[in-house]
């Protein structure tokens, strides 16, 4: 496949997006389209499956097959889409509330089941679309519209969760480094099996504003200042790492995907395997 221009993968007639000025979603959208372009994907053989939430609109702006499903279930729709047509490249676009809170059970089982999907989870640490309530990744102490006292729960570390559940490719990037994100998503797409890419992002309208970051620029700066690479993190103490996002790879290994394993087992069962 030859590399193409990322704009071929954007439904430019649907732009501008519905997202707020300064939202991180646009950066991730460009990274997804860029990763498609780097791989020169055939748009007819590519499907974007999305959930519900601000980031859940992303599929509307991509010029590939799109499936905009119900809240939290995108991975389950994608499982059927991919297993019934293994020729498709399937990217699953979810937010932290969508993909990791209401959809948390599907996430861990998708990671374990290892269907050849690429999940791109935009983590903005709250439910943006419904007005900024706390999600499963909201940091402790944060103010949201449903944690006015300061959030008392601890958040999920999504990459640690996905890796522990068995995902064979897990990486975290940030909207502060768009090209790096594009690269991580491309590698996730190239990876055979379930791959999980978290894009640490900003929601200036709700999460940023309520937590003292009045402008998008402040929200981005905060995210940058609270991110460390894996390499740098290795030299830091637990105390120094508190409240910081670690960027980099959390898993990258080969493991035969569900569809391939199943088809091999079925061939063997039918007597068409190596033995015949």
């Amino acid at each position: 496949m030859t590399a193409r221009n990322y704009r071929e993968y954007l439904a430019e007639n649907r732009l501008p997006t519905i997202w707020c000025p300064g939202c991180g979603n646009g950066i991730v959208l460009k990274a997804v389209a860029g990763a498609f372009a780097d791989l020169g994907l055939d748009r007819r053989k590519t499907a974007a499956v999305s959930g519900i939430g601000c980031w859940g609109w992303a599929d509307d702006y991509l010029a590939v097959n799109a499936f905009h499903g119900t809240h939290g279930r995108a991975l389950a729709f994608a499982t059927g889409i991919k297993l019934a047509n293994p020729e498709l490249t399937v990217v699953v676009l979810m937010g932290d509330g969508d993909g990791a809170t209401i959809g948390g059970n599907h996430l861990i089982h998708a990671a374990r089941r290892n269907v050849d999907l690429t999940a791109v989870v935009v983590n903005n640490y709250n439910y943006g679309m419904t007005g900024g309530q706390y999600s499963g990744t909201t940091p402790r102490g944060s103010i949201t519209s449903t944690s006015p006292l300061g959030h008392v729960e601890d958040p999920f570390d999504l990459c640690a969760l996905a890796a522990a559940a068995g995902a064979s490719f897990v990486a975290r990037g940030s909207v502060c480094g768009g090209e790096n994100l594009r690269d991580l998503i491309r590698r996730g797409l190239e990876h055979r099996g379930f791959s999980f890419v978290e894009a640490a992002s900003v929601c200036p309208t709700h999460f940023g504003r309520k937590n003292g970051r009045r402008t998008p620029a402040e929200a981005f700066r905060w995210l940058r200042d609270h991110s460390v690479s894996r390499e740098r993190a290795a030299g830091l103490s637990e105390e120094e790492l508190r409240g910081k996002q670690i960027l980099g790879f959390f898993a990258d290994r080969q493991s035969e995907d569900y569809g391939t394993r199943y088809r091999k087992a079925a061939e063997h069962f039918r007597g068409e395997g190596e033995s015949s």
Partner: protein
Amino acid sequence: MTKLPPLFTSGNEAIAEGAIAAGASFYAGYPITPSSEIAETAARRLPETGGMYVQMEDELSSMAAIVGASVSGARAFTATSGPGFSLMQENLGMAVMGEIPCVVVNVQRSGPSTGMATKPAQGDVMQARWGTHGDHGIITLAPSSVQDCYDFTIRAFSLADRFRTPVILLADAAVAKLKENVRFRPPEPEEAAQRPLPDCPPEEYRPFAVDPEEKVITPLPPFGSDYIFRITGSMHDETGGQGASPANADRVIRHLAGKIEKNRDAIVRVRRFFLDDAEWAVIAFGCSARSARAAVREARRQGIPAGLLELTTLWPFPDDEVRDVLSRVRGAAVPELNLGQAAGEVRRLNDFGIPVRGISRVDGTLIPPGDILSAIKEARS
């Protein structure tokens, strides 16, 4: 080697065999009594025919996975019982709104909640119709024999594809666990017909285009073909883009109901026993139709002119067929394993002022033919 299926088999196995005969190539499900043999048969038989089985983490994802597989072009199905059917309502709605064909088998058991897992019931009639939120049409078939389980499953796939809709096969624990002799016939050519592809150029395709007469249902090509399109559970315009204007929303909702309502003739099927000269009618479906048939036969033996209208399509409700029977008899009885869900529909159609008596049973046991016969006799006196 593909073994020929046995001829003496259960309703559950006949459902799975019917699906495979219909060309189903994808099953996603979560085990639940009393439907688990459908999953087990699918897990064994699908790989023999090049299909695929996947056991999901719950019924929410099972329903979602078959919807996804259908969008990739597969004839896809799942099977469950009451508690699982409750969980499937969310993505059943997705299939309705996205107009995605699929078949959902609900082997009804006693409820609500966990209820009695092994006991038959017919309490999900209204849930099949209205379980997912919002206005819409739905197709629901009700088998009363093991042969029906096989035949109606094949028909369910055909109706699903033809009308781009989920179809519910509303079985019950009694029929699903029953063993009878079955003829595993091949599907009729129109039942086996693959989904048509659009005949317009890809750039002109509108996945949600609507014929106001509802005669032509817009074809749904599979993801991966030359047609690139968007499917959505949100309110959409003809292209699948956002379309929340009042005029568009009104058009879409009326279409979701209208494509089923305006095609009743192609969907609704009933069976008539001894109705030509009947003065007393029994109207029943599923396992209760079996009891009703025995009751009517016994009534005839005793010289009582009773007949049976068996509703093999429950939704859309056979309004014309029921009204026709009510117009010609002196009274009707509706036996069912619930507190009157179908009886209410029959009463809605009773423009003739005749007595319509519900015979309800919700104790996890079947209605004996004698109870139905007694009701007919009481009505006469």
